């Protein structure tokens, strides 16, 4: 007897590394995350250590990215801010996923819920992201949690829409019918048969939402409706550097570059994942 050879589909991780843009995107965002995670080890100064003598110093060997108006080290602050920016982005994404998937599944499965949910989704998507976020933060009162909740709510409809549309397709497929014929309870059909087949599109969308949410957080902070200005996020840093543009450009340039790098790399990852998981493109692998 021949030995049983189990040949599963090539592992996703291996496939991911074979795609150049995807690999680059992943490398950059992971590096940024690593810097943020290891901030206490990497940052030469405490993020809030004041040094009035050294205020508004340009980048140098001592202060890689220069200092701000209170003499705080921009390099250390950028790294520490990454912690918050990434956390807000990630938390908002998770929150958006929870709401979006729940609503999408409910709408896709229950006709009555669908009428209501579909309207709400449409209505929310008619608002510009930032306006809706500002309104929500204003209504809830600005704080870190509020920003996360607001961004989660703002981006949930995107996911809900995708999940709903796919659910409507999948629920009609014979394997779902087979499960119904077996008497499998609805909630298990939702999770085992529907949700499990939606992992790829959700993952792709979540990556994009991560990027959008980070960008939105920065915008909110820049506009002064986000997290409190004392907490260093890339957005608050740019906001405070705004008054010194032309005089101390490094105050805005470095956190700006950090935002661009993370958003760009996340977009690359999202695009790469989408190509990778698209069965039509996958065939030729």
């Amino acid at each position, binding site marked *: 007897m021949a030995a049983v050879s189990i040949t599963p589909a090539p592992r996703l991780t291996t496939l991911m590394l074979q795609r150049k843009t995807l690999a680059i995107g992943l490398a950059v965002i992971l590096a940024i995350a690593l810097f943020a995670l290891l901030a206490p080890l990497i940052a030469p100064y405490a993020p809030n250590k004041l040094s009035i003598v050294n205020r508004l110093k340009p980048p140098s060997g001592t202060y890689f990215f220069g200092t701000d108006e209170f003499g705080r080290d921009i390099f250390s602050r950028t790294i520490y801010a990454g912690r918050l920016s990434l956390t807000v982005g990630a938390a908002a994404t998770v929150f958006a996923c929870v709401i979006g998937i729940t609503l999408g599944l409910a709408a896709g499965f229950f006709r009555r819920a669908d009428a209501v949910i579909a309207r709400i989704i449409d209505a929310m998507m008619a608002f510009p992201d930032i306006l809706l976020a500002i309104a929500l933060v204003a209504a809830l009162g600005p704080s870190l949690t509020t920003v996360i909740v607001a961004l989660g709510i703002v981006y949930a409809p995107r996911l809900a829409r995708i999940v709903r549309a796919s659910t409507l397709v999948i629920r009609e497929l014979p394997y779902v019918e087979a499960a119904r*014929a*077996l*008497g499998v309870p609805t909630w298990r059909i939702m999770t085992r048969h529907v949700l499990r087949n939606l992992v790829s599109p959700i993952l792709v969308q979540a990556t994009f939402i991560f990027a959008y949410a980070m960008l939105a957080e920065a915008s909110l902070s820049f506009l002064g409706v986000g997290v409190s200005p004392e907490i260093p996020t890339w957005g608050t840093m740019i906001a405070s550097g705004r008054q010194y543009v032309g005089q101390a450009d490094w105050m805005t340039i470095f956190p700006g570059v950090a935002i661009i790098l993370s958003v760009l790399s996340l977009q690359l990852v999202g695009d790469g994942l989408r190509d990778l998981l698209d069965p039509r493109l996958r065939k030729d692998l």
Partner: protein
Amino acid sequence: MSQSPSPAGGDVLLSVRNLSKRFHTASGPVKAVEDVSFDVGRGRIVGIVGESGSGKTTAGRCILRLVEPSEGEAVFDGVDLFKLPERALRAYRRRMQIIFQDPYSSLNPRMRVGDIIGEAIDTHGLAKGAARQARIADLLTRVGLSPEHARRYPHEFSGGQRQRIGIARALAVEPELIVADEPVSALDVSVQAQVLNLIQELQKELGLTMLFISHDLTVVEYLCDDIVVLYLGRILEQGPSREVYANPRHPYTKALLSTAPIPDPTVRRERVILQGDIPSPLDPPSGCVFRTRCPFAIEACARAVPPHESVSPGHSVACIRQAELATPATQKVTA
């Protein structure tokens, strides 16, 4: 009702009475199935034959309550399935199962074969742990696969093998009735024969009762004990299949049998080629639904839906002119 049920002896496992299903679509109501009645004897294979729009698939789905019927009853072993509340229906789901046409979309691509079959076992709490594994292995062996296949994913199998997995899933709950919806239509001829053999073996071995939905008249003639001919949602003719094939009485059945391609160039048949298209189920003809394509239609056909008349034991026809039109359709001339 006027329809004569046709269990050719023996006891009836499933009795469908006046089944109707209307769908409400944007362009109006569609009568997918209209006043369909037939019996399925225990241990028999009943073929449901029809072209597109005939309602054969919908009828099968209604009986399993995968689609909610609009009217009628389906008495399964003494209980009307259509009246059962969802919870009570769960217990009956174990007794009737379905096999699908498309071997690709009928298996969840993200589940291992063992989990696909295991889900059936778990849902009804039939076995746990080692007993569950043994049962999965046994089912796989039974359908001609090997127990090791349990660890693989559907995409690693060919169409015929996937169809076997679908059959194993249906058998996992030890059903009495199986609705097989075009189970071999998507398969290559050589694989089709393998699966037909498997279906027969299992049917005999397990004493299964089957509703075999198909558009392939050759396969139905070979496999089925009884046949029900549907057209635009209505039954036009039904009876024991040998009787119906040898002596079709409805003009539609005759046309269908005379044009079904037979792999023998020496068979010379009087082909009845029907004119025109199958009407839209959105706007079916009045009276006899077949009259617009029927070569023998007369004015009276438009007036009322023809009643089913019994022409021999278990064989009934819904045609007001059936008595005048009795002629054999196929004659073999050997060159």
